[in-house]
């Protein structure tokens, strides 16, 4: 039985992931009344599975260390992850963002910089002193995709990459829950502010879910800028930002 699971590892991983995503979206609907996005719940369940895998086997690859579930190492590995992320660029186009003008561009750049700098300050305050770890955690403060992509590119430890994912997930949840609450205060009731909001927050799932809970008509505007955020973060964090951090830390 286990041999069969190992032999068809990738397919088994797809089956299990499908079940996890289904249950997570049900949980998001029924238990959390959509205040926590299904994607955030699913990622949390993934992290819990990784914790269980690590506890059961004592290994460092989460659920993939359990023999029958080794296919997760392929499905969740850097190749499929980066491939899927690149495909999301189909939903965005340069002229669309140009329409939002200066504010959209500025919010994108500022959103990445502010999240990175404040994330880096948190990392340093909490006692991290090496440039790779600081940059990876700061990347996680951008989004749960920028963190692991940065960490993977720089060769950060799995623990630090996990922290960066967890930070991004916290951000996604906070954006989803917080957006309807602060929408009126920050003037989030028009397409232009929605674009600025998407650029500042960046976390695509949080932005889409947060806007859906506030005003569904604003979702595409926020998503347009948010889809560029991940690309910009993946471009800047392991390159220029890492270089700047490495000037101050080893």
């Amino acid at each position, binding site marked *: 039985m286990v041999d069969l699971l190992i032999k068809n590892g990738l397919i088994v991983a797809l089956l299990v992931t499908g079940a996890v995503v289904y249950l997570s979206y049900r949980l998001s609907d029924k238990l959390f009344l959509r205040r926590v996005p299904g994607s955030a719940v699913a990622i949390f369940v993934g992290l819990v599975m*990784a914790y269980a895998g690590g506890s059961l086997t004592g290994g460092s690859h989460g659920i993939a260390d359990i023999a029958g579930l080794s296919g997760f190492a392929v499905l*969740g590995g850097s190749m499929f992850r980066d491939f899927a992320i*690149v495909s999301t660029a189909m939903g965005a186009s340069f002229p669309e963002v140009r329409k939002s003008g200066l504010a959209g561009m500025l919010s994108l750049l500022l959103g990445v910089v502010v999240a990175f700098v404040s994330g880096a300050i948190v990392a340093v305050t909490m006692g991290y002193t090496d440039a790779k770890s600081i940059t990876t955690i700061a990347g996680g403060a951008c989004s749960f*995709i920028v963190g692991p992509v940065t960490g993977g590119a720089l060769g950060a430890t799995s623990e630090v990459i996990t922290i960066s994912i967890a930070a991004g997930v916290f951000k996604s949840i906070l954006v989803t829950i917080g957006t309807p609450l602060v929408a009126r205060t*920050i003037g989030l009731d028009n397409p232009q502010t929605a674009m600025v909001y998407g650029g500042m927050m960046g976390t695509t799932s949080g932005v889409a879910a947060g806007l859906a809970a506030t005003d569904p008509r604003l979702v595409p505007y926020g998503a347009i800028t948010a889809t560029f955020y991940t690309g910009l973060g993946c471009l800047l964090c392991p390159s220029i930002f890492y270089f700047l951090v490495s000037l101050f830390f080893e």
Partner: protein
Amino acid sequence: MLVYGVAILAGCFVAGQLIGEVLGRILHIDANVGGVGFAMMLLIIINQWMHRMKWMTPEMESGVNFWNKMYIPVIVAMSAIQNVKAAFSSGFVAILAGIVPTVICFLMIPMIARIGKTKA
């Protein structure tokens, strides 16, 4: 053909990774520099160009969109293979690194939206 769309995505992916590797060598950083970001830019440009030339068919688009929709499940699988057990002790870092930037960014939105409006 659906596979043409997937192949375009794969081509952008490989080209982006290659640019990232070369840039890493040039900058003397032992890392792939923005390979994913370059691949995304390539895909946006090629997608627009192919639409203009009327070469992009809905079927080819669905080849790319399949992977677009697979991205949350792939991220879930990625979370499931991380070393969570080891990171648990420093969980407070993750909470702070998630909350602090989010609050600061929320506060800055009205300011930047105002800049945009005066220009528009």
